[in-house]
């Protein structure tokens, strides 16, 4: 890190110095950036819906999915959501995630479809036995493709954001998948103005990312502003964890056992992203409220994906996963 020190790093932002102002919006015509982001996402949701025949919302239960679902409800209000939700269940999600999912579905009267790769289950595929790559490929990527094919969904909304990872910065809002759900960089379309081209041939599908221009901070501020419920795992609480490979894993059920020399301890932790519990690192934190979480996000010097085992490895790996249809 010596090289890093050669650059003068500006002092970390001190929250105390943030201006305490309630700015009057100039001439009442500029929109706050959150409302502008909301409007853009609603526009994208409506365009995609109008240009598809059987769309579905990929619901991964995380905070981005929660925001996406909230925006979709707004886009098609006052009616009921005019399409289904799909959850690809790898069988390794946190139990609290599943409970939260079922509660939301009941509350909002949603049509939920769940899918688990039965062939993967038959082969006994799991993250602890087969490692991150195989588990993610079989249970998540292939599971998703199976579900899309099975139900004939021609368009899938996802909650991915461009700020999540460097290679994502170039992802289109409407991302065309050729036959077999492949991502071909040369077939990706220009998106001038807000003109999205949703047309595709019968063998092709579309992935649409209405949150493309949001950042992690925008997502939290929006969750706060709109009072959107999220899985409690995002907030700090005492939880049983094992320290492994430089991270903290939560013991969500007895499939995760301490190895020699490891102990299960109770620590105050929370999660910045949610996925399969043996692949999702917890961070030690006392941030038990939304206010604390936003404060921590602002001060945090670690990017949100650092806790995800799936994103480690070489820088080109994300892009390879994308070509394989992971997103």
């Amino acid at each position, binding site marked *: 890190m010596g090289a890093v020190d050669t650059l003068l790093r*500006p002092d970390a932002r001190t929250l105390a110095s943030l201006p305490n102002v309630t700015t009057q919006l100039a001439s009442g015509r500029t929109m706050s950036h959150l409302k502008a982001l909301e409007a853009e996402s609603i526009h994208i949701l409506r365009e995609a819906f*109008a240009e598809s025949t059987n769309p579905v919302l990929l619901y991964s239960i995380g905070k981005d999915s929660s925001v996406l679902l909230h925006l979709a409800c707004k886009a098609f209000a006052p009616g009921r959501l005019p399409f289904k939700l799909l959850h690809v269940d790898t069988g390794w999600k946190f139990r609290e995630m599943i409970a939260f999912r079922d509660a939301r579905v009941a509350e909002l009267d949603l049509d939920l479809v769940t899918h688990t790769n039965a062939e993967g289950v038959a082969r006994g595929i799991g993250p602890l036995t087969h490692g991150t790559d195989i588990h993610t490929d079989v249970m998540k990527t292939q599971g998703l493709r199976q579900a899309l094919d099975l139900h004939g969904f021609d368009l899938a909304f996802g909650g991915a954001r461009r700020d999540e990872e460097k290679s994502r910065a*170039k992802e289109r809002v409407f991302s065309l998948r050729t036959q077999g759900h492949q991502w071909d960089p040369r077939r990706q379309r*220009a998106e001038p103005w807000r003109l999205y081209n949703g047309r595709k041939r019968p063998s092709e599908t579309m992935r649409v990312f209405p949150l493309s*221009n949001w950042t992690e901070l925008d997502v939290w501020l929006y969750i706060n502003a709109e009072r959107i419920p999220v899985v409690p795992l995002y907030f700090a609480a005492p939880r049983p964890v094992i320290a492994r490979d430089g991270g903290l894993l939560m013991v969500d059920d007895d499939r995760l056992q301490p190895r020699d020399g490891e102990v299960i301890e109770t620590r105050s932790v929370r999660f910045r992203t949610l996925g399969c519990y043996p692949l999702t690192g917890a961070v030690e934190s006392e941030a038990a409220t939304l206010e604390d979480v*936003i404060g921590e996000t602002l001060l945090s010097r670690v990017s949100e994906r650092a806790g995800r085992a799936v994103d480690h490895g070489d820088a080109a790996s994300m892009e390879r996963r994308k070509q394989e249809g992971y997103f």
Partner: protein
Amino acid sequence: MDIGIAADFNLSDFVAAHEGKDQLRLITCGSVDDGKSTLLGRLLWETQMVADDQITALGSASRRHGTQGDAMDLALLVDGLAAEREQGITIDVAYRFFTTDKRRFIVADTPGHAQYTRNMATGASTADLAILLVDARTGATPQTRRHALIAASLRVRHAVVVINKMDLVEWSEARTREISESARALCDGLGFESVVVIPLSALDGENVVHRGGSCGWYTGPTLLEHLETVPVLPARPSPFRMAVQWVNRPDPSFRGLAGEVSGSPVRVGDSVTILPAGQTAKIARILGQDGDVAVAHAGTAVTLLLDRPVDVSRGDVLADPAQLAQVGRAISARLLWYGDTPGAVGDRFLLKLGTRTVTAKITSLVGRVSLDTLEIEPATTLAPNDTGDVVLTLERPIAYDLYSESRSMGGFVLIDPETFDTVALGLVQAAARVPVAPSDSHTRSLAKAVSYRALGSIATATIAWAYTGNLGASLAIGGVDAVSKMAIYFVHERLWDRISFGKAKHP
């Protein structure tokens, strides 16, 4: 890991500060090696958008791929796809975000190569401001001129000429003045609302966010100060429009028109005209992003309810009755060609403008536009990255505005009807006349005149001979008749060809 929370962090104060922020979209343009990636990396770095683990990754990547020896290469922060990193160039449009206490910024980062004008046009289509990057050693180049032209023709309102690498010319004031004059001359008359010149060094950061001691003579704003204060709202408001995205009918009692407001605000009680059909109705209710509102401003996603049942479907446009959009079946347009296969007269496409998609045919290719001189050269096709002026004839009338008046109602894309790839970006420049029914060519008119006349004159000569019995005189009469009437017929035929009365309506 120990992440402390500032003891006096107050969420409502923070949210209040955030609520006041607006959003500026900008595009960075420069030739390869002008320092675009370094500048963007610098902005992200200085505004704290870089996390610690990214810095660690950057440290090791800098030693492997960087151009800065052991020091960190900020350019690697914004370098995207793996294949591109190998080549050391970026070849697409990438979007980055940063936030300051005053504003949130969305940056479209596009490549500098001449052959990638299409990517630049895409990035410029939504930008409020363009950064035109110039190397202090070389000054403005024809490439700078081309970038300024593309930005201006896509109606980017503000230009900032950034003179980079000032450290390599000893922060020379004379050099700055020289480049500033040539750069201003080059932006002159392009229609930018503002042109500002800022000398800086992306590498050491001076004049990007902070002032340094190297150029005391410079009294203007730093780059970030300028970006934070340049006006986001257009100087002159355009008339109200809303392209209908979807007709929302959850139950028989509710029929809402979903879309996004552009131009002037719309209020409950306002009259609107539905185009292209032309019926008028009043706004009975406006559902905004958070429920019922009395007025909706530009950029708001709304669902409008009308006071009477009128026939409206996706693709229709609601417009201010006092300032209607144009409606027509033919437009003159400037195209920026993306497609791998060239476009030519007679080719058919799907045209998407606003929320309407119609079949369109190129009925005339006026020529290719040189982005260096703006002159129009004759051409028979438009190849990838060409810019050209065409006339498009549409299968049915659409509502539109000129691009010079409205980006959302004057910009369109052309879509290949078989692959559905987007093949061109288009700007409406004027209404055009629908070409008239296929007419006879001059030679065909002439041939018809000759054959008709030959028959007619033989008849005339025969009749003359029958009356006079004088063969010589009869042939002479037939000959003169043939020549004079042929001339008269030809002129008559060409005159009629110019009159549309009684012709078939469609091409």
